[in-house]
């Protein structure tokens, strides 16, 4: 890891772990993200603005590094789905927690993507990364080449390879585990999102209730009425603070475990894709092997060549993949732990705060009697 960090340092001119996506500007339907990164050379920062398309361009470039051996064994950092200003229900679902209309978590997710790319020992070597992070001019937005890593077509045409029996037990278990985890994480993230959504609804309902309580306030000099009005106003305050409390609970949930689970879920997807690419290669290798065996003597040599090449490539992939999986394991556990700890701490904080508030309100009401 240390070695890799050094490598990366030499490749990129910015601190990989200090990339920030600070702002998002909405211009019609396009969203522009402001990315700030610190120069390695000392003082000074790079400020660049990138649209979602630019991110996609970067990702495509990363996918397209066909010259790097075993690139297919890399677990590519997952890019969040394209945000939409007026998202349909379906895209909302795809976006998950990032589609709540709040841009802060989305920026956070983008930031995580960039950091992961910058921190990746293989990917950071790509020129596109440097360009993306430092060039003030936007990278070529139009030239997105559709390559074999285009996930959509891949998903359709090669779904059947999913169940292919693996030759390596390590990868077989990894695949099985990944399959389970993917679905579990996805469900968990969805459920969590539901929770957050409901919390937001509660916050809104509390707000409405609090506002409506002011309706009960009756004008008049009558002591009874005034007493009742006071009670109403006070209760309104209570619900206002409950609303705030709920809002912050929802926010905290979103920014900690929500993001964590979302990232985890996308991670698992990325791993799944990597494993799938490997499986595809495996299938390819096996077929070349068969071909080589069956091949007529004339073509035998050529076939053997192909087989060899495939074998080497597969080996590369497997090597990289094993590395990647180990690294990935570590990263995601760390990430999840961080998310959980942060979450827990924030929950504690808000709970304490609101307990404190309730206590105050209670005293006020006690004093009113």
């Amino acid at each position, binding site marked *: 890891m240390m070695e890799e960090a050094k490598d990366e340092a030499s490749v990129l001119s910015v601190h990989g772990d200090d990339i920030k996506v600070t702002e998002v500007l909405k211009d019609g339907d396009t969203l522009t993200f402001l990315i700030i990164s610190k120069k390695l050379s000392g003082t000074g920062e790079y400020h660049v603005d990138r649209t979602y398309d630019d991110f996609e361009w970067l990702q495509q470039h990363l996918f397209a590094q066909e010259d790097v051996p075993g690139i297919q064994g890399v677990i590519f950092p997952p890019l969040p789905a394209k945000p939409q200003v007026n998202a349909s229900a379906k895209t909302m679902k795809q976006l998950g927690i990032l589609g709540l209309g709040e841009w802060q978590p989305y920026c956070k997710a983008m930031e995580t993507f960039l950091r992961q790319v910058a921190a990746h020992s293989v990917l950071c070597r790509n020129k596109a990364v440097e360009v993306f992070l430092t060039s003030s001019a936007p990278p070529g937005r139009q030239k997105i080449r559709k390559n074999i890593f285009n996930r959509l077509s891949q998903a359709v045409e090669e779904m059947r390879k999913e169940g292919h029996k693996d030759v390596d037990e390590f990868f077989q278990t990894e695949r099985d585990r990944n399959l389970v985890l993917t679905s579990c994480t996805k469900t*968990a993230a969805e459920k969590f999102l*539901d*929770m957050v959504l409901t919390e937001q609804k*509660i916050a809104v309902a509390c707000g409405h209730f609090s506002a*409506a309580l002011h309706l009960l306030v009756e004008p008049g000099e009558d002591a*009874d009425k005034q007493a009742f009005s006071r009670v*109403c106003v006070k209760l309104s305050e209570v619900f206002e603070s409950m609303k705030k409390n709920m809002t912050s609970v929802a926010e905290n949930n979103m920014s900690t475990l929500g993001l964590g689970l979302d990232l985890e879920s996308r991670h698992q997807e990325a791993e799944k894709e990597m494993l799938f690419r490997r499986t595809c290669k495996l299938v390819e290798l096996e077929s070349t092997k068969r071909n080589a065996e069956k091949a007529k003597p004339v073509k035998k040599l050529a076939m053997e060549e192909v087989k060899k090449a495939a074998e080497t490539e597969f080996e590369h992939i497997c090597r990289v993949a094993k590395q990647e999986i180990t690294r990935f*394991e570590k990263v995601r556990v760390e990430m999840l732990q961080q998310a959980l700890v942060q979450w827990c701490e924030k929950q504690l904080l808000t709970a304490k705060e609101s307990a404190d508030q309730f206590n105050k309100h*209670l005293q006020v009401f006690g004093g009113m*009697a």
Partner: protein
Amino acid sequence: MATSSERSPPPFPDSEDQDVLDSEEVGGRDSDEDDGEDLFMSASSPPLINTDSTPEPASQLSDVLTKPPSDLMNDPLFEPIISQTDDKPAGEAVSEPSDDFFDLINNVTTETTGPAVAEISLDEPSDDFVDILGSETPKEEVVVANVTVEAAAAESEVPGGVTEPFTDGKTGNDAGLEADESSAAPIIDLSGDLSSNDAQQQPISDKIADPLVDLRSNAPLAAEAKKPSVATMDLFEDEGSDLFAEPQQTKSAKQPQKSLFGEPDEDLFGEPLGAIAKKNTSKAQKEKSDTTKAAAAAAEGPQPATKPLEPADIFTEEAVTAPPSISTTSTVNKTNGVNSEADTDIFAEATVELSLDSPRTERKTEVKPSASASTSLSAAASIAKPQSAALEELEEEEEEELEDKFDIFVSVKDPEKIGDGMNAYMAYKVSTQTTLSMFRNKTFTVRRRFSDFLGLYEKLSEKHGPNGFIVPPPPEKSLLGMTKVKVGKEDSSSADFVERRRGALERYLQRIVNHPSLLQDPDVREFLEREDLPRAVSTQALSGAGFLKMINKATDAVSKMTIKMNESDVWFEEKLQEVESADQQFRKIHALVESLVVHRKELSTNTASFAKSAAMLGSAEDNTALSRALSQLAEVEDKMEQLHQDQAANDTFSFAELIADYIRLLGAVRGSFDHRMKAWQRWQDAQAMLQKKRETEAKLLWANKPDKLQLAKEEIAEWEAKVTQYERDFERVSATVRKEVVRFEKEKTKNFKRQIIKYLESQLQSQQQLIKYWEAFLPEAKAIA
């Protein structure tokens, strides 16, 4: 209108005044003879029935019932005269005494209007007193009659109930029941009176003065007139004769007493008006007790049967005020330096009589509770006495005190489905915990089904609604909810429904027993105490939609009537508007709270499913530390789910249900406004009718048809009485509604505050629980590595 000039100022109508004024008016228009006759007619119009009914006291009392079941305070002061004129002469149809009475009455009016009442009474101390005795005793008599009649009315078996008191003594068996009721009734009345006192200060003092003046001149005659009539009724006989015996006694034998009486009187009048009012009433009660006792003593021989009953009734009445009033007046006497032996004697006798009576009637247990309950009332009243200025506030306080004193807690528990299929119903355990001595036991439990609760409401609203009381409504019947329960679907919504209803029923009962007047209702007691209640029928009318419709209809009627009604009282107008807007707001807020509850429930289910998925994730996880942390998280979330659920329930019961209650209660408030409106309408109708009759009379007069004229006059008299009656009814209902609304508002604030505090406490608790959960989880999360 004839009486319009007089009607507007006094908030509480005094029938006598009006009768008198009316008659005066008539007198002004017609000849003097007419006047007399008219008056007589007006006075005796109800009694006309009495003549027939003398053999059957029941029907006569039912007459009485129509008049006075109202405020003892107002009525008694004037009722006696009415009753004298009404009942007694009526029995005999004496024309001569009637004239006297009119004179009397005329005097009354003149004096009433005159400011120098106090002086007059000072001038003629001796006679006054005798008269007071005379006049007031019959009053009490009437009161007693009222009481019993009211009790009977409460039973809604007017004839039977009324006759009972008379047969009671003879049989001595039904006594218990009767005493129960009569003891309940007076307290209601008294409480009503006490609070209305201050408003009446002026009138009362005037009134009190009146009898004195009147009687001064006419008492002997009246006495004579009455005497023959006494024979007609048992009730009146023993009371009446005694009364008259008493006065005479006092007159002849106790010459010094007169002066004594005169002096305290003077003092009394020297005191603030409010105080006078109260003292006089208390005095009245004293005297009543005195006479009762005398009556008991004297009538023992001839009417052994009636007596036990009578004293008992009076006794309950007496017990309400007598002890405190004795003390206060005696102190007054002392401070004034006028320590009249006669007075103290009377009191001593009264107390002796009390103790004598109770064992004799064997109703000690029955009487006592009411006495204790009422002593608190009167004690409070006596506290309030000295401060005439801040009376109103004091009275409010006193009311509150009383409420606090009602140490009774009703809980509704263990809802249980009984039967199967569509005939199934829910039964609830109604447990009462009380230290009130009006109940036989400290704790008791009965089983009631839902329709019983509705039945109780029907009974109560029938009885108390027209009087302007706000009867707390029970939860509506819910066809949907109940069908679910009946079908036996054991899902959360039906459990929720049952729980909500149980809570609503509990709050409903608690509201009833917290109401000082409703608590005294025999039906309430029966509901709480009796093992087997007769099955409530026709509660269907109250079911769900029907109930709402009824309320809406009432509201419509109210709004329509408001247009017609030229509201004389701005307060009511404002209040009605307030109530209506409050109703709207409450409905809005209720919807909001309900949606909050829905969201909370959603959160609870979402948390549960998250917990489940977290558990699954944990089990799928390879990393042992992470896996453990995730399983821990699942547990925490499971607990959290419970917390959210509790919170939802908390929101429901603290706010949603409370607000739903208040929406129902506001409906009841509007109902009470409606009842007031109805009373007003009746009064107006009667007035219109009277006007018509007068016109007819004028025409007849002009056409010179003496035979028909007589009839017309009779009719006018009848309608005059009715107008007076209805106006008084209206004023009474108005007063009650007003009082009830104030009480309602007070209760509302108190209720909300209590609920909010409870709510906050539970919120605090749940937050603390939350903190505990998270604190326990934090190290687990940190342990992942």
